């Protein structure tokens, strides 16, 4: 910025900071407001997690009691395991689904516009609606299983929704349905920006389509894959309305997820302190995932600037 200012010597002699005031305001005010709310809200939550707050925030100090209570509860333990399973399964599968859809759509097929809309429209629908509709479709007595039985195949079984070991996968299904369109859009964008010359050169060398994807196109999608994974991870961690409408944590408490536990403790059970502790634990999980990514990005950038 100093450079820019220095290059305008013929301007009237307003003090530099006055001239730069509007741009500084435009840059800093929104960014600072955004950063300030994130930092202060996080600090506030950390503080609350050490207080005996129940219905409303109160002052006081209970040490790590809220944390030990949360960590010892079955709900949290189940939620934690589920997050690991749901998070990794959902992120991988939705990325894979998105990639497959993108590759299919990239085959110069007819009606691409319509099909793209079909795969994207779930993004436009609210989570509550998605959860409710899928709770019907996946319910063995109402949805897919019943339909297949009515068609005559009566030994067909698809009852994951009521099976406490498999129920978490119903959330994976609904979440993939809802969000892999976004992954598809990102991947499609990536496929479309692969250099046409490289592809042509490979074709001249006689590379078949599968080889071409494996050797040339997919490797170039690597940065996009990272973006997809980050966005889907964010989705996985904050999944809340969807589960509430689809299983509400059931059967029993088999599909609890951290976001659900946080809300439940804070507002349903009126244990604000414990809810805050659960939220802090959730943020720590998140940091454990994001820090390696940040480190990777940092190294990558350094390597790029050295090259």
């Amino acid at each position, binding site marked *: 910025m100093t450079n820019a200012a220095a290059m305008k010597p013929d301007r009237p002699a307003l003090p530099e900071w006055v001239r730069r005031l509007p741009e500084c305001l435009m840059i800093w005010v929104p960014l600072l407001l955004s950063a300030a709310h994130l930092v202060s809200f996080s600090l506030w939550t950390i503080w609350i997690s050490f207080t005996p707050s129940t219905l409303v925030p109160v002052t006081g100090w209970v040490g790590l009691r809220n944390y030990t209570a949360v960590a*010892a509860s079955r709900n949290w333990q189940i939620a934690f395991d589920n997050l690991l399973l749901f998070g990794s399964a959902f992120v991988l599968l939705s990325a894979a689904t998105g990639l497959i859809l993108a590759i299919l759509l990239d085959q110069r097929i007819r009606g691409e516009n319509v099909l793209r809309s079909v795969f994207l429209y779930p993004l436009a629908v609210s989570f509550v609606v998605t959860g409710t509709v899928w709770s019907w479709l996946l319910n063995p*007595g109402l949805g897919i299983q019943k339909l297949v039985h009515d068609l005559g195949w009566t030994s067909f079984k698809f009852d994951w929704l009521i099976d406490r070991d498999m129920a978490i996968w119903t959330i994976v299904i609904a979440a993939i349905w809802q969000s892999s369109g976004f992954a598809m859009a990102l991947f499609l964008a990536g496929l479309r920006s692969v250099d046409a010359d490289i592809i042509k050169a490979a074709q001249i060398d006689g590379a078949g389509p599968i080889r071409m994807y494996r050797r040339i196109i997919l490797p170039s999608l690597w940065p996009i894959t990272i973006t997809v994974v980050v966005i889907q991870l964010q989705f996985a961690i904050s999944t809340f309305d969807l589960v509430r409408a689809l299983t*509400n944590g059931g059967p029993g408490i088999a599909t609890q997820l951290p976001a659900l536990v946080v809300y439940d403790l804070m*507002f349903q059970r*009126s244990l604000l302190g414990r809810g805050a502790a659960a939220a802090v634990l959730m943020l720590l999980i998140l940091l454990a995932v994001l820090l390696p990514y940040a480190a990777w990005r940092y190294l990558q950038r350094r390597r790029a600037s050295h090259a």
Partner: protein
Amino acid sequence: MPITTTRRRLLAGSVATLALPALVRAQSAAKPRLTVISQWSAGSDGAAITALGKKFEEKGGVWQHSPVPGFTTEMMNKLRAQIMAGDPPACSQLKGPEIAAWSKIAPTVDLDALVAAAGYEKVVAPDLAKLHKPGGKWIALPLQIYSTNMLFLSKRAMDKAKADKIPVTWADFNDLAEKMKAGGVAYPIANGGTRPDDGQKFEAALAGISPLAYRAAIMNLEKKALEGPEVKAAFAQVRKIADWMDPNVGAQHFSTNLKRFIDGDMGMMIMGGWAQGVLRNAGFKFEDFIIAPGPSDNSKPVFLLNADAFIFWQRKEPDLQAGQTLMAQLVMDPAIQTMYSQITGSIPVRTDVDLSGEGWSDGQRRTGAALKEAIASNQAVLSLAHNMAQENGMTAAMIDVITEYVKNKTIKPEQAVARLAEAVEGAR
């Protein structure tokens, strides 16, 4: 009758004048206005609160209702935000022990004089009254009552079982379920699978086996009772109920099964009195089902109380104070309670309202009679599943154990007993 009522009201009014000079002065100065927060927005709940608002306006008041659709939690979020902002509504929906808990975070209105003037205390079930006067003073008023353990019997399923006797004890109930099963009823139990639904199965079982044990274990959280044989027997009964249910129900609302219930494909349902309103609104006929009090092993009806109520928050504005007085009088008024219950399918809080007249259903009459009998034999207890027995945190911890038990058939009753006691310790 109208004349005596008027005279009694006049008298009541003068008592109130003596007791509450500030409120009444305010009333004369300002047009009553009321800000209300509730979750009642749709269906019969929405219709009932709207009718109450109309009555309020007829009396010259300004009715400002802000419904918060969704779960109770969202209504509470809204209430909490208003309280934290120093702007609580003059009156809001709240029930059970939450009344005591919330009254600690913001000042409430002392309604003792108004309650005394209306003679309300004598006509309210004692356990219920206690919930609305934490610290000894009335700060909230119950409006309507449901029993959470009514027994609904499908006539067609009864025919299939060749049975005509309404089961009284749990043994009768189990017997009938077996007969239904043998007679070709696919699933003798038609309940849904939501968390409160699972909780209701357990509370109906325990209270039916022993109201005393229910009081000690669930309402008073006595460790010995929690680990006692009655709780274990209740879990064993819940297992039977769960085994007779359609495993496909998942977490669906009970109304999903109504068609199969009426068709006799399913036999019985342990559900709140509200189910009859649901059946009616779904277009089913009253001739197709029977309503009776839930099973009770000592043959006297056990009534699991679920009551909706309004809590009154302190406001300085004279018009809001006048509105609170008017609202309190309306809520306690037998005519208003009659109107309200006839819309929602509940029964009035006042035990002195006559339910024999027109506008009341058979189910409501039976519920009313059951309540009176239950109060007389001290068998009217507070529902756990509907947040009447314990604060929300404790309730949720207990329901966790119950719903897991219902859905997971590998858990043994004795394990469930241990887990329940553990959950109670953890949530204390």
